[in-house]
């Protein structure tokens, strides 16, 4: 047990929140502005940054130096250049996390040393690690990463009467992301069955629909295209979000933007009426896109919609009545209302933190692999070794063979993602396996094993069944890793062979360094992905 205080953090694309266990209760930390902190950083100058609500308010005056939605860029090599300084996505995330930690420290009047941070279920390994890194930069130890739907399920399970098992579906529609997850809850055991999502679908799309509506009408009525006017567009966007939120409570409202433009003919105002029905018509397409994903997830979990005991809504956008209606229509079940869609993720993270600090009775969480892990075979074909939705920890092996006669080395590239073309997926590492016994092509039998332990660390090993040679590697947690052959000379030699075509009687065949030919393939006959050998007796 750690001695310091530990909190739960929902680091969101649009809003973040922090919660903790206080006595017998799990509470959201409030600050001067409220319970949520917009995930926005606005740089005033080198020494002053505004974070959260104050940044949101200041953003219009300082658009170039304001960063929103940094969560979208976690794990990418994007850089934000502000006042001649460069910031990585983790740096910006760290500023927001630091603010949350400060708020929590002020709230309890004690130091906070550790946190559990939530990430979207679809986040790949690199994105998860970028989040851990952000926590470290904010000066805390990230005790564990849990997924947002698991956190929501923990929050739900916490309030629920103990006892019987139930299956829940978590539908999370936030500012820019959509996630659906199915979990099974039992006394003390939370088991994720399947998860799916779209990282480019959410409330921002709804705002955009209203923006389009305004711009189009203004164009028709005034003959002016507002899209070239950045300041006007900024105002329209802000107003659109407010209008959208109003329409969750009201059937009709007015879009009012005074002095939207001023020119020699005077000033122009916007004053349009908009009804909820109109708005629903606009967003229908976007919401409909979530439905197939819900059913895919049910399918992946091997369930029918009737098997779902509870539908839990998470994320600000699920407050839209039409969203609730669509879900109810397709799942035949009224979503559960006694849980706050804005806060349950942070509360769930705090519960996980409470379990860690032993303030809350132990629960076991078994999560799943969000995106397939595999290697490339033949011509850039992604061959999956650990499929999506595999329960973690996990270990799985497959047998591969060589493509060239007397090949003694293969390069094993590790990819994560759903594309059939390996190179379109996220690369996690590249390793050279040498010491394969010289055999004609397709004869060697090389077993490649992927293992993910409880801490989410991926370990890759390879074994040639003929020579008995075995090697293993741990995939580093901060991005692409590569291990060259033991002696670097080998590699030079091989490069030479490749460039000149002279082989020096060297039987070692090409490695994939620069060629587009992979030298790993499935052996004929014993090659079959995803299914498991059946016991026949």
């Amino acid at each position: 047990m750690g001695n310091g205080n530990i909190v739960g953090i929902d680091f969101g694309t649009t809003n973040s929140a922090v919660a903790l266990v206080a006595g017998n209760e799990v509470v959201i930390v409030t600050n001067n502005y409220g319970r949520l902190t917009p995930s926005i950083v606005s740089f005033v100058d080198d020494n002053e940054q505004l974070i959260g609500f104050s940044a949101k308010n200041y953003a219009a005056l300082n658009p170039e130096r304001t960063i929103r939605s940094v969560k979208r860029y976690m794990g990418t090599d994007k850089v934000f250049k502000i006042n001649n300084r460069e910031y990585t996505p983790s740096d910006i995330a760290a500023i927001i996390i630091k603010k949350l930690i400060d708020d929590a420290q002020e709230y309890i009047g004690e130091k906070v040393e550790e946190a559990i941070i939530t990430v979207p279920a679809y986040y790949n390994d690199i994105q998860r690690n970028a989040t851990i890194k952000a926590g470290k930069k904010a000066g805390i130890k990230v005790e564990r990463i849990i997924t947002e739907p698991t956190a929501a399920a923990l929050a739900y399970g916490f309030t629920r009467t103990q006892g019987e098992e139930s299956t829940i579906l978590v539908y999370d529609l936030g500012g820019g992301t959509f996630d659906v997850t199915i979990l099974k809850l039992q006394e003390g055991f939370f088991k994720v069955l399947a998860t799916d999502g779209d990282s480019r679908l959410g409330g921002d799309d709804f705002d955009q629909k209203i923006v389009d509506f305004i711009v189009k009408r203004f164009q028709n009525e005034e003959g002016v295209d507002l899209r070239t006017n950045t300041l006007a567009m900024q105002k329209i966007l802000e107003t659109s979000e407010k209008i959208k939120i109003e329409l969750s409570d009201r059937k009709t409202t007015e879009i009012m933007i005074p002095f939207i433009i001023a020119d020699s003919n005077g000033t122009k105002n916007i004053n349009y009426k908009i009804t909820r029905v109109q708005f629903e018509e606009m967003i229908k397409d976007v919401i409909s896109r979530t439905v197939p994903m819900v059913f895919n997830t049910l399918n992946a979990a091997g369930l029918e919609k009737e098997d779902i005991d509870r539908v839990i809504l998470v994320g600000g956008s699920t407050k839209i009545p039409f969203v609730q209606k669509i879900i109810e229509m397709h799942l035949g079940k009224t979503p559960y209302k006694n849980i706050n869609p804005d806060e349950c993720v942070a509360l769930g993270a705090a519960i996980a933190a409470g379990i860690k600090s032993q303030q809350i009775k132990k629960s076991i969480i078994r999560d799943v692999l969000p995106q397939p892990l595999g290697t490339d075979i033949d011509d850039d074909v992604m061959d999956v070794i650990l499929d999506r939705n595999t329960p973690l920890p996990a270990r799985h092996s497959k047998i591969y063979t060589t493509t060239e006669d007397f090949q003694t080395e293969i390069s094993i590239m590790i990819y994560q993602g759903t594309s059939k073309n390996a190179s379109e997926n996220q690369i996690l590492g590249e390793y050279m396996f040498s010491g394969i016994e010289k055999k004609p092509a397709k004869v060697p039998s090389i077993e490649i094993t992927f293992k993910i332990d409880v801490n989410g660390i991926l370990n890759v090993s390879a074994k040639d069944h003929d020579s008995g040679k075995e090697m293993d590697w741990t995939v580093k947690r901060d991005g692409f890793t590569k291990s060259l052959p033991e002696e670097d000379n080998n590699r030079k030699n091989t490069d030479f062979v490749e460039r000149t075509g002279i082989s020096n009687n060297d039987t070692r065949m090409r490695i994939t360094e620069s060629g587009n030919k992979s030298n790993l393939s499935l052996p004929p006959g014993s090659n079959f992905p995803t299914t498991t050998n059946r016991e026949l007796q």
Partner: protein
Amino acid sequence: MKKKTTDNPFEVLGIAKTVTLKELDRAYAQLEFTYHPDNYSSESEKFEAEEMLYKIDCAYRSAKEIIKSEPVEQGIFKNILKTEDKPVTPKAEVVIERSGGKAEILKSYICEGIRKKFFFFGEKYPSGIRTEFSGSDDEVYLYLKIKNIDRTFFDLRIEWISPFGESFQYITNRFDQFTGSFIFYCWLDLFGVKKNNLYGNWKVKIYFNQKEKIELPFKISQ
């Protein structure tokens, strides 16, 4: 921690072979919970639990397959092996597949009475339908796999009979020690089979110990 030494999926899961999928899921969840490494504090216990968990996962997948699947055709080998007094296992599987262009399982037989020595349990040895194959339709080959048999047991010879009555006996075979299968290839392009002559009703004859023989019909469609 109770360790399970058996490899039989149903024994690992502690359930009868007759359970429903729902009962299987319930038993599985219970074991996942019990053997989750987070339940243990010492490193060695955690390690043992993790290993057990992998075994349970694997058993679950196998058991699920078995419960879900219905044997395709049964009883073909029954009579042939009557004379054999070595111990036999009830079932082996013969799969005839094609590859190149369109890859698919053409026919799958469950054959009773083949002695099984090379039995492998677990995820290490995947099998099933190959869905992708980087070959063109011009390099189609058929292959027949006999899974779960003892390679010392048979003198096996395979004859492929095309829809036009041609017989092909050139065979490369390979014993795949990891899946415990005999694999027989039939490279049609080597035999000069024209693409259009490929489609129709085929037969594969399997000769055992030089005298016994079975015939398995299958069809290749366009």
